[in-house]
């Protein structure tokens, strides 16, 4: 009897032992996908959304700093001054920007890896071009960055590459991307029509024009890289080669009306991030009271009878007993005890006049695209290239004028074409194109400065550093001391803490934000 029971016991143990394998095989994730079941289209929508959010709405973060340093926005008197108006920046302040760029690129890198393995060459090409865009922005802010060893799971501390080398490699990467896209069989790219959320003009959004759209995007990005390097010695030879390749490829650049941006299908309750950050929040309130019109930019546009200030900035809301629709700005960094500079009595960032949306201003509606590269930038890039004697189709002045007109039109200025044409007759050297390269660059620099107000803020700071044409005013914060406007950002605390050896090896531990320039800044 007893023996039988003991035998039963061991039998029971034995049975448990034998069914163990399936009993314990309960570790496949029921909550989220893993590498095994994720597809390129799912990753692409998210990566494009993130990048579009970065290019459109980083004004809430680092790009807003550029806007304030560069005379476009100014904090209202509702806020105490911080380190920014003293031109100081702690390493920790760079964490978010750096993370976003590498996070976006990590997603594009995974798309690259996955699509390469699956023969989805269209996805692969998109991933290469988009990585180039994010790396370009990183170099423009930080100079030397981890590149050749970055985004590799087996390297936990990637080394830093020379900024110039990164730039030159990006040109190749974009070429490679365009080549892959043009040769791609779309049918072999699973669900591409859903995954590709880069939106432009209606005609470019068709499946038939998908390759054209991406090629234009890539070519424009290449031109942006070349123009950034315009002050480098021997740039003309490089530009000649690269532009010859672009011409040979044949798709051209982003044209008037073709501003490119991401749009996953924003709706009122999941709005465009610029709309949500700067115009109206979901409760229908104004989104923010921090940024207001900066007197520098506002007053120059007023002086030039440049209608666009009415769209880059909002009129002061219903102050009793005053004229309707007037615009009031703030000198950068006034003290917060000045009641005439409070948010309620100064000009907000421009956009639709009601929470239900409209067609004018920076923030037009909750459902608008998140711009990535604007058509006016593309036209100004072409104008500058041509002015420098590079082999771009068209005349410099015509490209310049269509860049200005495109800016009016993008903002939704009524009768944009004729208003722009009238504006362009101004003899002011900031408007008139002039005859010499110096004249041309001055006009282009100022018109880029106006056109990029609130929408292409990194390029505003880039052009200021590269061309030194727009004479930006210095902060009035007494704590500024003798600090000039910074010429770069400090490396993030996360790199100093977790990639210490490499950041120091590249000299990153001893950079000065006032004197350590980006390689193209000469």
């Amino acid at each position: 009897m007893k023996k039988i029971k003991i035998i039963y016991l061991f039998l029971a143990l034995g049975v448990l032992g034998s069914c163990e394998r399936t009993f314990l095989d309960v570790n496949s994730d029921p909550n989220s996908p893993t590498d095994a079941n994720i597809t390129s289209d799912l990753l692409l929508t998210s990566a494009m959304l993130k990048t579009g959010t970065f290019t459109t709405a980083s004004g809430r973060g680092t790009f807003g700093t550029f806007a304030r340093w560069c005379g476009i926005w100014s904090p209202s008197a509702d806020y105490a001054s911080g380190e920014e108006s003293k031109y100081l920046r702690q390493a920790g302040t760079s964490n978010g920007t750096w993370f976003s760029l590498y996070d976006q690129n990590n997603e594009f890198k995974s798309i690259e890896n996955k699509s390469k393995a699956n023969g989805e060459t269209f996805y692969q090409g998109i991933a290469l071009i988009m990585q180039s865009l994010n790396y370009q922005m990183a170099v423009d802010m930080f100079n030397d960055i981890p590149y050749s060893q970055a985004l590799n799971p087996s390297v936990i501390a990637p080394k830093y590459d020379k900024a110039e080398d990164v730039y030159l490699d990006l040109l190749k990467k974009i070429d490679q991307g365009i080549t892959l896209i043009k040769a791609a069989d779309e049918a072999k790219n699973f669900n591409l029509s859903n995954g590709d959320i880069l939106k432009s003009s209606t005609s470019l959004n068709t499946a038939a024009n998908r390759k054209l759209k991406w090629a234009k995007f890539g070519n424009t990005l290449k031109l942006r890289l070349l123009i950034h390097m315009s002050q480098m010695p021997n740039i003309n030879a490089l530009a000649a080669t690269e532009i010859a390749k672009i011409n040979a490829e044949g798709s051209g650049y982003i044209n008037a009306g073709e501003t490119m941006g991401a749009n996953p299908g924003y709706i009122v309750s999941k709005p465009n991030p610029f709309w949500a950050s700067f115009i109206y929040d979901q409760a229908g309130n104004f989104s923010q009271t921090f940024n207001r019109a900066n007197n520098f930019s506002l007053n120059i546009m007023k002086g030039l009878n440049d209608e666009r200030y009415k769209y880059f900035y909002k009129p002061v809301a219903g102050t009793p007993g005053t004229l309707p629709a007037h615009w009031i700005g703030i000198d950068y960094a006034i003290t917060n005890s000045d009641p005439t500079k409070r948010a309620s009595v100064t000009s907000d960032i421009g956009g639709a006049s009601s929470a239900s949306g409209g067609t004018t201003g920076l923030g037009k509606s909750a459902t608008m695209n998140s711009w990535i590269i604007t058509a006016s930038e593309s036209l100004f890039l072409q104008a500058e290239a041509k002015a420098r004697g590079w082999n771009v189709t068209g005349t410099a002045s015509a490209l310049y004028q269509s860049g200005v007109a495109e800016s009016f039109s993008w903002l939704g200025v009524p009768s944009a074409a004729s208003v722009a044409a009238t504006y362009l007759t101004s003899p002011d050297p900031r408007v008139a194109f002039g005859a010499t390269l110096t004249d041309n660059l001055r006009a282009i620099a100022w018109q880029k400065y106006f056109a990029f107000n609130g929408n292409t803020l990194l390029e505003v700071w880039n052009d200021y550093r590269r061309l030194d044409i727009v004479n930006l005013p210095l902060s009035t914060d007494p704590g500024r001391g003798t600090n000039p406007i910074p010429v770069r950002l400090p490396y993030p605390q996360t790199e100093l803490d977790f990639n210490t050896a490499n950041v120091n090896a590249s000299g990153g531990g001893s950079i000065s934000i006032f004197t350590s320039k980006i390689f193209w800044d000469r």
Partner: protein
Amino acid sequence: MRRFLSLFTMLMLCSLLAFSQSRVVTGKITDKDGRAIPFASVKIKGSPNGVSADDNGQYSLKVKAGDVLTISSSGFIQVDVAVENQTSLFTTLERSTKGDIKEVVVTGALNRKINAKSVGTAITTIGAEDLTKVKAVNVQQGLTGRVAGLNVQSVNSGVFADTRITLRGVRSLTGNNQPLLVIDGIPVSLDLISSISPNDVQDVSVLKSNAAAILYGQDGANGAIVITTKKGNRSKPTINFSTTAQFDKIAYFPKLQNEFGPGETEDANGLPVYDYFTNNSFGPRYDGSMVPLGHPLENGQQFMVPYVNLPNERFNFFNTGVTLQTDISVSGGDEKSRFLLSAQDAVITGIMPKDKNRRTSFRLNASRDFNKLSVGFNVNYIVQNYSVVNQGRGGFDDIYTSVIKTAGNVPLTSLKNWRSNPYATADGYYNFFGYNPYMLIDIDRSTGKTHRVIASTDLNYKLSPVFSLTYRLGTTLSISNSRSQLGATFVTPFTASYKPSPWGQSTKASVNDFSSTGVRVSSELFLNFKKNIKKFSIDGLVGNSILSRQTNSIGNSGANLVIPTLFNVSNRTGEPGVSQGLNQVRTVSAIGQATIGYDNKIFVTLSGRNDWDSRLPVKANSFFYPGVNTSLMISELIPTLKGNTISSLKLKGSYAKSGNVNLGAYQLNNSFSVGSFPYGNLPGYSIDDQLKDPNIKPEFIVSKEIGFELAMFKNKVRLEVNAYRQDNTNQIIGISLPASTGYTSSLVNAAAFVNEGIETELSLTPLLDLGKLKIDFKGNYTFQQNKVTKVYEGLDQLSIGNGGLVVVKKGQPAYLLNLLDYNRDPQGRVIVDANTGTPSLAGARKTYGQTLPKHIIGLTPSISYGDLALSVLFEYRGGNFIYNDIGQDLVFNGIAASTVEYDRQPFVWPNSVTQTGSTFTPNTNIYTRSGNANLYTNSIFNAVESAYYTSADFWKLREVALSYTFPQSLLAKQKLFKAISASFIARNVALWVPSSNQYTDPEFANTTGNATGINTTGQTPPTRSLGVTFNFTF
């Protein structure tokens, strides 16, 4: 009480041989309350024959009619029992009034009653008498400061009484380091330790070594606290009733300035400006004049207040916290069955107004013996209901911050009626940068209800005198529902015209609901064996354990609620937020253990366990961990040692390995999350920021310990010393990566570290015995230190949490604070700017001191005079450091005492230098540009961390308890009460810290996890409490 003396008798009896006798008698030995007396000795008078009872007080022995059995056990009066014709004997022993101290049995792992002599690892047992003597309200209080190696840290003073409990420091750098709690054999959540009434506790065993893991599995790797509840007795029912009221009051705030009122600007001459709208205190010095507070209302009225410091406003904002706890239990039984029914209700109202937490629990323990089969059943139901303020309102000030930063002249408590007082409403409240905290307390709430049912059933079947089978099925079911709500705020257009957003905007209400269910099922089957062969004994088991844990949680949230007071997710515009998490973990184990004893003097225990764990890669999911320990009764092996000086001496040594899968389910593959997707029909996924390792292995701990237990002077002096070393390898850590890798962390087998420590427990009982007056003393000292021996290939340092502020570094103890400092010259002097006189911030963080204490001392002197007893607990912890994050806020807001150190005048930065190239010149004449707002609101003060770094050493008078037991002579006149006692307990009576610590109780921390060492305003201020308890036995 079972006493030490019985050991001697037992020793003699064990070696005796049994000769043929005429028949077998079986017996049971109990105390007068019916509790079994284990291991009592049973000897036939005038014969060498005898046996010792088992752990249930049962024995069987061959006897002849007419034999007389001498039954003895230490701590009881010996009796002689004549054997006549009975086949069973039931003997009750009376407790002797004097005797030795040492427990004969301890409760080991799996609730096995084991002979204390055979224990080769460190186990401290606290009996019911010790627990009730200090009148602890809960078991955790009863253990604090009383067990060497046990660190009970109260990290907050809220209604949840957050505590962190560790045994022998840490064994996992990032995983769980808290011990396993076992109540009546079933592992349960550690927080339930406060739900057990000390009145219901039979004993508590603290198993300090990771050897507990071999029987309990991975959760036992940090040791175990094993609570055995009373099982009821065999006399008539006993009813125990006790009630406690405890009152908590804020003990102190950080050191604050009380000279300067609201202001955040300076005029052109650098003089402070009175700003009526701010929560910063950089205004002019208080002068007693009438000043406006806040913007004029729409009707033109303005709040006028005297410009004086109101010293008690911040203090009076907080309530007196009250804990009311009632315990009732009924126990009883007969020869074959026993039961204990108990209930507890604890209602805690916090020092934070309106915060409340109520916990009610019911427990039934029942058992019945049937011949060879005994069956036990335990069920415990706990319901917890809480409502606390929802701190922070989406990134704004928490309540404590908004109260403590309120300028001294603001009559805060007069602004309580935020609905009716025009200066207290969202419109009229003076502060442009914060909400009225009274309003937030009313409209922003987190509420929740948790139900838990813990049930287990035990079957014991005696197969033969040698073998028995044990089967235990346990289940824990928990259901929790919680809701977090933010109320709507309303302001008029007039307010919106001057108050910045969001305070000057109307906002809509939002609600976030979360519910989860969890089921834990464990099944354990053991074959136990126990046999004596001549002088050898063997006691062991083999078994199998299956554990399954499953949770399912669902959350939904809605913003923009349409009807502002209707907190329901369907009452919203826009899309709802939804989430779901499923989790399943299974572990199968095979277990074996055997203790071999020789002559009751030498014991060796061998054990081993193999786990198969679902969280590991399927092909490598098995791991084995063995252990061996030995115990030598030196005083028995060398009888000449024993005498009036040495009563007993035991040496012990142990080796144990344990494995621990410090992973959640599904941690082997990179995962993807939806973020804000889908947009309509468009899906999207993004890569999670943590990189995973598909070949990850468990963490391993190898511990070695040696120790001795010495009793001297007839057991009046007892000393136990244990020394241990733990090698912790293969630590599973999410190492921080630079974002340039594309990830922010990587979950890998990384660091290794070594823990070493010495635990000393000394008791002098009695220290002094003058009849009615008795003085006892118990003390313990723990030294613990660890060292990180390996971090990760290519890394010498890694962050383990709290935003990179807490790190481990190769060659250094875990954990270190890692803080931002000023730029300093090679001599450590602060480099200041030659123009501004202020320092700059160094780019990279530097490591500072360790966060875990090195030295812990607990001293518990007690004195009793007749029925009156006074006991005191002093505790020291030291050798560690803390970062007081609260300091940044206090300085930035101008309320820290340190901001008036230079009387708000420019000053020369102490011990500073200026730098020209690589030359450093001592600074004697460059003053800071400002001594007011412009200086202290400078980002340097808000970014520097080293300035708020202090020693965490403290001495604490943690407890003073005075108790009175009504004498039996008084009770003899009535029949209702069998016993009555009353006690008064004061807790956290006094705290002594180094003068550099101007902030708070260094025990406080912003986490109960491993990254302790940082306190923030997330903890409410420390409290002092006074409680009174009455205890009635019917």
